[in-house]
């Protein structure tokens, strides 16, 4: 039996059998959550584990003994003694048919991974279940909103499968309710209040809808600019450079170029969330205004470029001269609240070890 590791997080209600394996569970757990815990890999489309389960896509269905029809595992609470099968032929065929229907509108779907964190979920499942066979052909639903000229979020609803993850993340995670669902069935359309551009809605451009979209219908416009750049997309885990919340991010690079930012879904401070600055204000890094060479001021007031050795010597000589003339309490250091620890630590050591003073501060007083 797979026992619960964390006994504290709720009353243990009993155990279920999943694919012949006995698994303990506690109060409030769904079949999907238990299955995930025991690594059953049930496919999903409308599921984001930060959001309330929704049960819309039906891809996560499983068989439960004693229940005639397959049940959506994400919305079905486990009960003691349940016998569950997650991968029978019937279930797999059911899933394939569902995906074939989803693919009836977008079998050519080919989404670049730069579109968003979850953007390849649908494409991956279509390939896994070989569902791009054109078995169903029908009407198109959703229509692309090309009029919204915002520079961050592409709204290509041709690819929308009405999983409502974007709507739910905006409501449940962000509390902003900027986007909502209009109409039903084939007329379903994700839209803003009065169909306005995002800029004129409650949208704060935090990018959460983009990152949870499983089809690339919502695409990160800034990142996708780099889709034709040579090279693989590489992710480096770091921390956002703006406020003090300390959101963990993955820096997306191609070669030596930062092409986008994605939130770290397991970031301890942010749990997958970001704001407009952390999500989209990254390209200052490659701005042509960046300083690239040490600069020394000349007698005429202009700067000239210098080699490091010369610049460091000149910087040191200046401090030595002032110390000689005015004493060790005439030099002051100001550290940055933006640079890492190593900068602040060496700055304070520069003053304390170099001058024997505590003439050091940072920018927190203003």
């Amino acid at each position, binding site marked *: 039996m797979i026992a619960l590791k964390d006994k504290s997080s709720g009353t243990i209600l009993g155990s279920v059998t999943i694919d012949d394996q006995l698994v303990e569970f506690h109060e409030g757990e769904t079949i999907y959550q238990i299955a995930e815990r025991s690594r059953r890999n049930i496919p999903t489309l409308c599921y984001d584990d930060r959001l309330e389960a929704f049960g819309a896509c039906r891809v996560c269905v499983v068989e439960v003994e004693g229940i005639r029809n397959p049940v959506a595992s994400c919305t079905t609470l486990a009960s003691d003694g349940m016998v569950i099968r997650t991968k029978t032929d019937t279930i797999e065929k059911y899933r394939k048919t569902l995906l074939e229907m989803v693919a009836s509108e977008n079998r050519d779907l080919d989404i670049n991974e730069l579109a968003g964190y979850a953007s390849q979920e649908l494409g991956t499942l279509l390939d896994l279940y070989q569902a791009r066979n054109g078995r169903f052909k029908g009407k198109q639903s959703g229509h692309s909103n090309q009029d919204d000229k915002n520079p961050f979020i592409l709204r290509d609803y041709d690819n929308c499968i009405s999983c409502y993850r974007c709507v739910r993340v905006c409501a449940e995670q962000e509390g902003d309710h900027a986007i909502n669902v209009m109409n039903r069935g084939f007329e379903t359309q994700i839209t803003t209040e009065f169909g306005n551009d995002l800029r004129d809605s409650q949208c704060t451009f935090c990018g959460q809808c983009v990152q949870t979209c499983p089809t690339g219908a919502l695409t990160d416009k*800034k990142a996708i600019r780099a889709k034709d750049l040579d090279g693989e997309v590489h992710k480096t885990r770091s*921390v956002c450079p703006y406020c003090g*919340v300390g959101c963990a991010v993955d820096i997306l690079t191609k070669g030596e170029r930062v092409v986008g930012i994605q939130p770290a879904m397991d970031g301890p401070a942010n749990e997958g969330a*970001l704001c407009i600055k952390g999500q989209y204000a990254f390209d200052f890094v490659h701005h042509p205004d960046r300083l690239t060479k040490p600069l020394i001021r000349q007698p005429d007031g202009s700067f000239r470029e210098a080699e490091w050795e010369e610049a460091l010597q000149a910087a040191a000589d200046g401090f030595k001269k002032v110390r000689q003339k005015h004493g060790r309490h005439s030099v002051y250091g100001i550290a940055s*609240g933006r640079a890492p620890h190593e900068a602040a*630590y060496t700055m304070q050591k520069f003053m304390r070890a170099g001058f024997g003073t505590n*003439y050091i501060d*940072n*920018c927190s007083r203003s």
Partner: protein
Amino acid sequence: MSNPLSDMEHPNVIFAIGTNMTECHPVAATRLKKAIARGAKMIVADPRTTRMAKIADLHLPIRVGSDVALLLAMAHVIARDDLIDPDFINARTAGGEEFLKHVQQFPPEWAAPICEVDASLIEKAARWYGEGSPAAIFYTLGITEHICGVDNVQSLCNLALMTGNLGNIGGGINPMRGQNNIQGAGDCGAVPSNFPGFQACADPENAKKFSDAYGIAIDSEKGITKVTALNNAGKDGPDGIHAMLIDGENTVVSDPDKKHCEQALRSLDHLVVIDIFMTETAQMADIVLPATAFAETDGVQTNTERRVQRLRAAVKPPGEAKPDWWIISGIAKHMETPGFEFQSARDVFNELCSLSPIYNGLNWDRIENGEYQWPVPTSEHPGTPRLHEEEFKNGRGLFKVIGYRDPAEVIDSDFPVWLTTGRRLQAYHTRTQTGRSSGIDYLLDEESLEIHPDDANAWGIDDGDFVRMSSRRGTIEIKARLTDRSPRGTVFTSFSFASVPVNILTGSGYDPVTDTAELKVCPVAIEPISNT
């Protein structure tokens, strides 16, 4: 923060004062929104009707700089209505008796005319906070950037102490830090009063510890603050400051009283600036040294909940830009200062850990996944997500007897309008970074002055007009934007745009303990600029 960010989803009552969190710390604000959706009540004290105020259950639009009066009256009601936590007060605090007696003088009716809000709202806020355990306090620069910033913070501590809202899940006193590593700069000892790890400079044992570690006699009294250093720049005599090393700070745009600040830097014999851009401050330097930026630097930073996290380089820096630690060490070595033979960021961080009690249990490898919140005193220690759970570091939590005082400058017939400054969601500080990121201009391409429509009407100003705004220190021109987000008699703008250098106006006074500038209060005069 005394409590972890995850605790923000658990209070019954949220008291947010002087914090525009949805714009300045949007991701933290999402946790408050979740708490509210779960049923928590939120009290917001802010002169402006920010989005925080809009989603609050109770908004106290207090006059700028009147926080102490509000907090005294809240303490009065909590004491009067017996909403105190006597067990907590007895077991864990000192000075309670005197404090409870002190606040008897300050009923809401006393505070109401000072704060310019109804006494009934103050009553309600006090009762909600007093009855709401766990009740959490959140604040930002709206509390600290006053001449009474320390009084404000201590008044908040008094509220938490009298109701036992410290060391509990979903409670605490939680300042939201504004810069990615401003907490870290303090942790690392880049302050005049403390060595790394908040070891007081004035304690001779600490001075000896660092004198031994660094191989030089270090002063055993604390140094002067940046504010004093700028005041003393170029001065004759023993107090004069004649050289500065500034790392990554655009002092002349972000600091109060811009003209004074420029003059100070100009009067130095030697100014070295390390930065990633040619900022307004770097332009005044004798030597400018190019640093690596986000995505180019390996290192460590600490967030507002004391979480120690790794930064990782993803790309090469441009040209010959170097990490700050390399540059500073290079200058030190050229001055023949020993102890700067660092080969990597790892070397620097590990030396910091060895000298800092709050980091003693950490090293470069242990912080790989960012799961530790300091203090982490030993390598077996699991970290400290929540401070003050069992006891306070210095024994007992001390009540402070505090009185209200007016801001450094108050409105009068010459300067009849309150100006308060702050931030906007889409711009970060002086825009050296957000201003150079594509797309941001689509949402925010210029700064404007928020004026209440009724005031604008009375002053003959239309939306979009340029106005002249003056304080005792200078004058700027700025475009008017009519909005009821700011109350009548108070205008608001940010300092983010160099084209609207609002810090020419600010700088009326400084907190006597911390030297923090009163950036949140500045009386001004506003007049339309006639088109003729």
